[in-house]
Structures are given as structure tokens and as C-alpha cells.
């Protein structure tokens, strides 16, 4: 089971370049695709889900080009788009039955699978109510169920935790972890904690380009010794923000505890253990510096 993305570019009609010579090779596990808004994550997901085609480059599923032969991938694909709709007059069961038919599942398999999935996403109790009355979180769970209908080998989930409350998010992360194993799961998000909890690999994307592809441990290693905690007064906070790359701030009785990323420590700052959010911000900052020399904010000006 292998998914290869080879020098993929996507240019939209109005000339916007959403992806630029993007390459990546994936094997079973959970890939966390991280990037800021507008980085090209959804475009990449749409190409991998055969919804749109790359302008250049190709995507291979077990060696087969999915632009030429999309059905090779579609029969083993589960896709939860960022924005999707439901038919409001159908119940969850009827909607899933319809999509199972579209995906080519036989009636017996579909019936069994739908029962199991509704139980998995805890919608059994409301399975016969029209989807038009469901909340955003419940519709998202119907989306998760439909993505798993055909027991996919490639599962693509685009911003899946948007609209879920904290409890539901935790549950969904656990579900994703359980689903990995003998399948490739691609989780696209800009919420670092979602990736931190589930991903076996991380790809960072910015302005349509691959910034980094590594294990979470390798990414964390990159910022080892470059994260500092520094206490400043409220009055000095704005000046600190101008001088340093700051990943978080916490107000306490002794002042504002600022988490600073940089090769050199500010005066009186203590080194702290980095987390994935630090690594993400650091990598993006490094990428911006490389693209536009002179813009780096990781050290004192």
C-alpha cells in the first residue's frame, strides 16, 4: 500500500497557484498535514480524493496514476471533505444506505456496516431522524461514518474536528488513532493538538510547498534548545513581540510568561522542553526566512 505524490502543482483558472511541485511518499500510518490557512491543504486533499486534477505532476496509488484511472483509488477511498452537505429529509441510515449504493456495496454488507458505524459514532439512538434536524457535530459524525463505509485503505479527512466540541474532538482523535494500522490516514488540519495526538508522520505545508516531512520526534528535535520561557512585564510585551518569535503567552502574578523561539535566549530566559506547536512555528518561520531573507524574527534584531 503506497501513495506517491510526484511534483504536483495546481493552478486555478484565475492564475492562483495553490500547490507548487509538491512531492511526498506515504505508507500505512497517520499523516498529519499541517499548515496555515490558505497553505494548499484542501487543494491537495481534493487532488488525492480524485475530486480535482493536478495541473502538473502525478499521484500514484500502488503505482497507478489516479488522474488516468481514478476508480483504482476510489474503490478503496474514504473521504471526509472540509465542507459537505447532507440530504435534510433523509435519516442517517437512509443517507448512508444511499452512499453505500453509490460506492457499490451490496445490500447485506451495507446494512451490517451502517449498523456498526452508527454505533461507532454513537448515532444509533437518532438513526431514524431526518438529518435536517441534526447539529453540526452530529452531521460531522455522519460524515465520518460515510467515509468508513467501504472500509477504506486510504482515508482522507480534511479539517475533521471543525464544529466538534472538545469532548467530541478527543473521541475523534482516538478514533483516528485506532483506524491507522493497515491503512493510510491523511489528516489535514491547522490545529496542532489534533496532529500531536494522532499522527505518526507530519508534513508541513506553506504557500503550496512542502516545508518539512518528518516524524513528530524528528520535528521536535529540530527545536531542541531553541525554546525559552521568559518573564516580561505587561508593558514590555509588545516590544518583546516585535523582537522575538513568540509561540504563546500566559499572564501570571509575576508578569507575562512568554514562550520564545530562537537560536539565542533573551536575557534571563530559561530553556524549556519544546512541543509540536513550537516546532511548527519554528519550521514555518525558517521557511519564510529562506524565502524572504531578512524577515527572520527568531533572534534579536
Amino acid at each position, binding site marked *: 500500500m503506497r501513495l506517491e505524490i510526484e511534483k504536483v502543482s495546481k493552478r486555478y483558472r484565475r492564475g492562483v497557484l495553490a500547490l507548487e511541485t509538491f512531492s511526498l511518499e506515504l505508507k500505512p500510518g497517520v499523516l498529519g498535514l499541517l499548515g496555515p490557512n490558505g497553505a494548499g491543504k484542501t487543494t491537495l486533499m481534493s487532488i488525492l480524493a480524485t475530486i480535482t486534477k493536478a495541473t502538473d505532476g502525478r499521484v500514484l496509488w500502488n503505482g497507478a496514476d489516479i488522474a488516468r484511472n481514478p476508480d483504482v483509488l476510489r474503490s478503496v477511498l474514504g473521504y471526509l*471533505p472540509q465542507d459537505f452537505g447532507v440530504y435534510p429529509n433523509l435519516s442517517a441510515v437512509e443517507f448512508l444506505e444511499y*452512499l453505500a449504493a*453509490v460506492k457499490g456495496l451490496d445490500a447485506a454488507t451495507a446494512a451490517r456496516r451502517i449498523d456498526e458505524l452508527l454505533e461507532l459514532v454513537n448515532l444509533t439512538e437518532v438513526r431514524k431522524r431526518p438529518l435536517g434536524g441534526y447539529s453540526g457535530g452530529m452531521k460531522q459524525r455522519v460524515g465520518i461514518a460515510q467515509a468508513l463505509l467501504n472500509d477504506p485503505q486510504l482515508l482522507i479527512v480534511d479539517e475533521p474536528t471543525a464544529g466538534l466540541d472538545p469532548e467530541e474532538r478527543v473521541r475523534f482523535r482516538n478514533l483516528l488513532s485506532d483506524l491507522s494500522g493497515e491503512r493510510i490516514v491523511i489528516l489535514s488540519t491547522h490545529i496542532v493538538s489534533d496532529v500531536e495526538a494522532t499522527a505518526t508522520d507530519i508534513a508541513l505545508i506553506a504557500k503550496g510547498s512542502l516545508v518539512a516531512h518528518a516524524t513528530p520526534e524528528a520535528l521536535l528535535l529540530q527545536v531542541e534548545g531553541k525554546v525559552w520561557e521568559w518573564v516580561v512585564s505587561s508593558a514590555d510585551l509588545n516590544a518583546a513581540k516585535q523582537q522575538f518569535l513568540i509561540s504563546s503567552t500566559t499572564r501570571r502574578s509575576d508578569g507575562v510568561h512568554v514562550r520564545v523561539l530562537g537560536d539565542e535566549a533573551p536575557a534571563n530566559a530559561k530553556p524549556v522542553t519544546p512541543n509540536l506547536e513550537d516546532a511548527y512555528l519554528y519550521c514555518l518561520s525558517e521557511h519564510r526566512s529562506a524565502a524572504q531573507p531578512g524577515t527572520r524574527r527568531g533572534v534579536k534584531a
Partner: protein
Amino acid sequence: MSRSRALYHMVRADFLERVRRYSFLLTLAFSVYLGYAVNSGQVTLRLGAYRGVDNSAWLGSVIGLVATVWLTLVGFYVVKNSIQRDRQTRVGQVLAATPMSKSFYALGKALSNFAVLAAMVLVLALAALVIQLSHGADSHIDLFALLAPALILGLSAVAVTAALAVLFESLPALRGGVGNIFYFFLWTFLLTESVGGVIGSGAASSLQTFKDYSGITSVMGQMRAQLQQFDPQYGDGASFGFGNASTSTKTFLWTGVKWSSTLVFSRGLWLGIAVGVALLAALFFDRFDPARDGLGIRRKQRPVASSKSLGGSPGLPSFDAQPAQRSVAHLVPVSHTGSRTRFFALVLAELRLMLRSHAWWWYVVAAGLIIACLASPLDVARSGILVAAWLWPALIWSQMGTREAQFSTGPLIFSAPHAVRRQLLACYSAGVLVAALTGGGVALHLLFARDIAGLGAWATGALFIPALALALGVTTGSRKFFEALYTAWWYVGPLHHIPRADFMGTTAASSTPVGYLAAALLLVLLAYAWRTVRLANA
């Protein structure tokens, strides 16, 4: 002052949003086509054997009547989406949270609709100028005589259309397909009332002038009076519409519409009616209240939740409220190697999806029509009841090819294997099944009577109607084009058994099955090709 500024910006924003869409060019193209139809003689105004000399007065009057008659029909379907767009883009919820009143919003939407329709009228008015410059018999341009009918009659008529579109969008019952079909009959009624003075004899009375929504009675009444002075032998024959001009062999000099105070006042009255209709719409406008969104969800069923999350809703299942009995490890694997195409299951799923959104009484009427077909003599069933039986499911067919765009389910469906071919053909097959079921009584009659030719015509109708719905749905992404075109075609063709236009084959004389069979095939191929190309270039 600030209110008028707010109104201006509301109308401006709505107008710009529309004119920057590709579909607006198609709208203007329709106006250009109407101008071309007048120029090429496809649309004619005749008074017995007479037509006017091609001067500014005659061309301006013809174009003015084209604007009032045709733009009031087609224009309605063009602009009946302004509130829906605010609902879909969720801009409406932002507006609802402002101090804006409902009447202010309804008036703004009516004005925005009017601006779009006025652009269409202006294009037509310019067409009159181009026609006269290109080959008018009289090279003298009288701008007032040329443009006044379109601007005075046309703009006041489309103002009513603009306001009616807002009213229909504000009434939940008329917001969808029912409204699209109902408007055709309302337009027919208004036009019939308007034309009443032409059918009668003599000049239009004041009452007729005020009832004259399109201005056709006023204009043609004056024309007839002038022609009678020119040729006392002229009777009272008059016609206006799509037809062959070759039967008009004589010409007379038409000097133009006399804008009497009664006529001008009547147009002002219709403008006032337009404002009244817009204000009436405000009474029914739901101000984007999601509890009154009129999605067609059966309200008797208890809504599951009103909030985004269910975390705090007692008694309702959240993702983690209680540990799910089943975990991923317990899911039974699905075999991918044995996956076969199960087309018939998909057809049934499509059929169920089509029929699901209707209330019980819809099925009662459909069943009644089937029984009536079976119980009636064959000629009555074929020429009468079948016509009704195949109008009844129009709102089912109009869903075809549009659901994926309407409900944003495209990404879920089109990422499935063989989705375009299988789903499209399954959808078409389900549409044919609906036709076969609702018109089944006549088919059985024809079968028992061994009327093979009749059965062939019936089958062609059953194949053609869903093909038309599918092709229009896939290409336009909207239900209303099929609903409008089908209703108008149904009225002209099957209802009046007009040869060539009768796609249902309601009589042996009006039936032309071979052409419609070929058209059905072409329409299905068009839908398939269109969707394939659209998805390939997404």
C-alpha cells in the same frame, strides 16, 4: 439620508454580485436573442394582413411588447434567487442581526431584481435601435418613439415581476418548485387579462387600460384604430408572438404610441402595485430565522438539537456521552476484491431519494391519477389524464442532476468509483421509473388495446421527460429552469395537443415519437458529457 444610502448599497452589492456571475451574460444573451427574433421575423406583430412599416415607432412598439410579454415570464426565473442566495451564503444571518427592517430588506431585494430586469430591458431597447439602423425601411431615428415603449411599458411591467419574485421567495409554499410552476399560470392569467382588450373590439376602455399589465391592449388598440382609418376594410384581427411573418403582405404607417394621461397613470399604478407587492412580501419574510427556514423538513418530527454541539443537551447522544459499544477493532472488514457494480440497488436508492421529500397527499393524488387513467376510456386517459399525471411529478424530475450542487454532497458522491456514469444513469433510470409509474395506467390501456404506436409514443414521453430534466439540471445546476421550461412546454404542447410540441404523444395526430426519442438520447449524452467535463476541470 442614511436609510437611502443603506438602500443604495444593499441594491448595489446585490446587483454587482449578480452581474459578476457568468450566468448574467446568459441573461443578457437572452435579451439579444429576443432582439434577433424580432429582427429575423420570428417574433411578429400582425393586424390581420397588415404589419407596420419598419420605422422607429413600429420597431419600438414591437420591442416594447416583447419586453413586457417575454421578460415578465423569463425574468421571473432569472431573479427569483436573491433571498435564496443570502440564505445559502449565510449573508442573510449577518443582515438579520442588523437594525434593517423586513420591509426595507424586501424593498431592497425588489429594487435589485428590478435593476437586473431593467438591464435586460435596456439591451432590448438598444436592439431596437440596432435593428432600425441595420435595415429599417425608414432611416429617420425618432429616439422617443423607438425607446419609450420599452422604457415605459417594459420597466413598469418588470417592476411587478421583480416584486413578485421577492413575494414568492418570502412565502415558504412558493419558494421552491411549486412557486416556479405556479408563476407560469399566474403569468398566463395576467397576460390573458391584459390581452382581453385586444380580443374584444374597439379601443381599450379605461378599466381595460388599468388591467393591461403588459400594455398590449393599449398599444394594439391604438394601432387598430389607426389602421382602421387607413383601411376601413380592416376587421379586428390581431396577433403577437412567435410565428411566420410571411402572411403579413401589407404594411401601414404606424406613428407611435399616444401617451395619454390614462395610459401613463396606469403604468404608474403598476409601479405602485410593485411596491405594494414588495411590502406584502415583507409581511411573510422570515428574516432568516432558522426555525422557519422552510427547508421542507417535516416539522412534526422533533428536531434533534438546535445548537452546534450537543455537549450540554440532556438526553441526546454526544460523541463521547457514553462509550460507544463498538470500537474500530470490532468493525467487520469489507472485501474490496469482490466489489461489483450493483446498479439496480443504486437505481432504487435514487428512486427512494427522489420520492422521499414529498408528503403523503402527493402520493394520494398520484395514485388517484393512475386509477383515473385505468378507469377512463383510452382516449380520455391518453389525451387528458396522462397530461395531468405527467405534470404532477415535475418537482420530482426537477431534482435530477441538481441535488449534488443544492445540498453540497458532490465531494461525497463523486469520489466513489464509476460515480459519474453509474450515478447519472441510475438517476435517469429512477426518473424514467417515476414516469412509468405515474403514467402506468395509460401504458396498460395501450397494451390491452394492442396500440403499439401509442405505446411507443408513451414510452418516448417517459424517456424524454427525465432526459430533459437531467440535462437541464446538470448543465444549469438549478431546478427552476426545468420547472419553468417544462411547465410552459407542457402548456403549449401536450395540453393543446400541438403537433411537434407534444412530447407525451397525447393523440395519434400530435405524436412525433422518433424525434423525441432521438432528443432523449442526445439529452442524456449531453448530461453525461457535461458532468464528465465539469468534474475533469474542477
